[in-house]
């Protein structure tokens, strides 16, 4: 009797121990799966954040980040009195302002219009075509834009000349005053279909009963769009708007470099391209890091500001 009891306790003990060992092994394996990611982010995300310190130092290639001498805010001062600052800042704000005014509502409008198409096949076809430019590289897309605008064999010049709008072909991309319009039109067309996906998903989630109720109340198409669909997807719109506002200083880089040329530099140089040129081409490492940091700080302030306002006004926010 006594012996049996002992054995039972013994088995229980061994069982407990092996379960613990089993759990430990599983835990170890799980940790070993996560740690490559932790190390990866440490090197490729956190270490560059530490590298931002060179904005407050005079970076010396041989001394590294920690060994370079501190200089406080002198690179920021240099950036703020830089004669290019006005141009660069103006272009960045203008391009993004246009993008916010045109590029932001365009996909919403597209999604709303697409939703009104009743022939499913046609709707799917339009959708498929509209995603296409998103998957084409900016080099090729920029190349397409340049081909259309070409003064020698571009179709736009041909059309405008034959309609008598202009008497001679114009080198559109070579004139600084056209750059913003060309860039923003290109971005709108490239992002139209893809940007609409999230709104199409939101619209498909709207309760169909609401439409029926609205129909019974005698609402027409426009009224349903205005009083049912739009309010229902307002949450999504607000979230996307917060993102768009926080990205107001991020002009895309790839599209601008493709369309930029010495003739339109006055309107095509933005903070991002300027950081690239001063940083990597002229090797003014500390200066361009300071310029990039100043931009990021403003972007973070904008993100929190937009989020705060949105929470106040619409009760919707990112965090």
């Amino acid at each position: 009797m006594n012996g049996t009891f002992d054995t039972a306790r013994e088995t229980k003990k061994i069982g407990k121990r092996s379960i613990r060992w089993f759990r430990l092994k599983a835990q170890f394996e799980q940790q070993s799966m996560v740690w490559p990611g932790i190390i990866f982010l440490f090197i490729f995300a956190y270490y560059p954040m530490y590298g931002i310190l060179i904005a407050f130092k005079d970076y010396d290639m041989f001394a590294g980040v920690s060994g370079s001498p501190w200089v406080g805010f002198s690179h920021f001062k240099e950036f703020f009195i830089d004669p290019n600052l006005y141009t660069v800042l103006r272009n960045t704000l203008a391009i993004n302002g246009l993008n916010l005014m045109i590029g932001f509502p365009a996909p919403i409008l597209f999604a709303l219009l697409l939703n009104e198409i009743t022939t499913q096949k046609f709707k799917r076809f339009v959708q498929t075509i509209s995603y296409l430019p998103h998957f084409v590289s900016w080099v090729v897309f920029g190349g397409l834009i340049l081909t259309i605008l070409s003064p020698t064999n571009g179709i736009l010049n041909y059309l405008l000349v034959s309609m008598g709008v202009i008497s001679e072909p114009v080198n559109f991309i070579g004139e600084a005053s056209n750059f913003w319009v060309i860039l923003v039109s290109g971005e709108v067309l490239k992002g139209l279909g893809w940007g609409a996906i999230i709104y199409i998903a939101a619209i498909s989630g709207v309760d169909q009963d609401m439409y029926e109720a609205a129909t019974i109340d005698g609402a027409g198409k426009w009224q349903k769009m205005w009083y049912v669909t739009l309010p229902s997807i307002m949450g999504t719109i607000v979230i996307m708007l917060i993102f768009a506002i926080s990205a107001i200083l991020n002009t895309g880089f790839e599209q601008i470099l493709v369309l930029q040329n010495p003739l339109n530099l006055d309107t095509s140089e933005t903070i991002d391209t300027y950081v690239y040129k001063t940083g990597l081409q002229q090797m003014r490492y500390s200066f361009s890091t300071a310029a990039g940091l100043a931009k990021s700080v403003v972007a973070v302030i904008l993100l929190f500001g937009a989020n705060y306002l949105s929470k106040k006004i619409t009760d919707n926010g990112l965090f």
Partner: protein
Amino acid sequence: MTVQSRGEKWFSVFNTIVMLIIMFLTLAPFWFTIAGSLNEGMDYMRGGVYFWPRSFTWGNYIAVFSDPTIYHAYWITAARTLLGTLTHVLFTALIAYGISRPNLKGKSAYMIYIMIPMFFGGGLVPTYLLYRDIGLLDNFMVFIIPGLFSVWDMMILLSFFRTIPESLIESAKIDGAGEYRIFLKFIIPLSMPALAAIALFNGVGHWNSYYDTLMFTSSDSLQTIQLFLMRVVTDATFAQGMSSQAAALVPEQAKKISPETLKLAMMIATTAPILLIYPFLQRYFVKGIMIGSIKG
């Protein structure tokens, strides 16, 4: 069937026209480019070739694929696309699986640590200096290693893993399978739709990227096709040089090519792989962003 009012009918017509215009604006540039690339170079320069080649030739494409520089650029791009996508998907999936384990110790701390880089980053120059210090500059691995992991893709996979029943994993464990075995034998095959979506996005990104080639490499042997094309598109002298080199390589086509038409042929040849897979895999693209948006 509801009776449409007159205004609604007009709206439908207007709506269809808007959609047709959008489709035309999207497709026409590709069409013009294809027509131009199939036209003789000198003739194209006279202008007027838009919807159909005037004097047809394959010469520009023959030239594009005979030039070893261009050929090499395609090779580098294909290599980085295949290797980069494969390693990215496996690495990201492994971490996502680890994070998805309910018993993982320190999970919330890890999540915060992983999320922070979504909002803050070091910026261009500190990243460049890091790559220089660890020997990634002008090294093929600069296309692969920094792209191994993406927090966003991890989030998509996390939400997908949540749909895999935990009982399945538990029963595999009772049968004595370790976490790595479960990951390889169960998780990867079960997550194929999500993995395929991520692989496609990532693959297209690799194929289309010229940013990293421009920033972090300098030798011609690492030039990707997009950077090569970028130089052709933005630099007339470079395009001229490429054209004369191609003309020297295929003398019988020399009269039929010009920098301009050669550029158009390259643009089409560079986009062709994407255009070819696009119709078949479009549903994956959309599915991928849907998974992401449900999460977000």
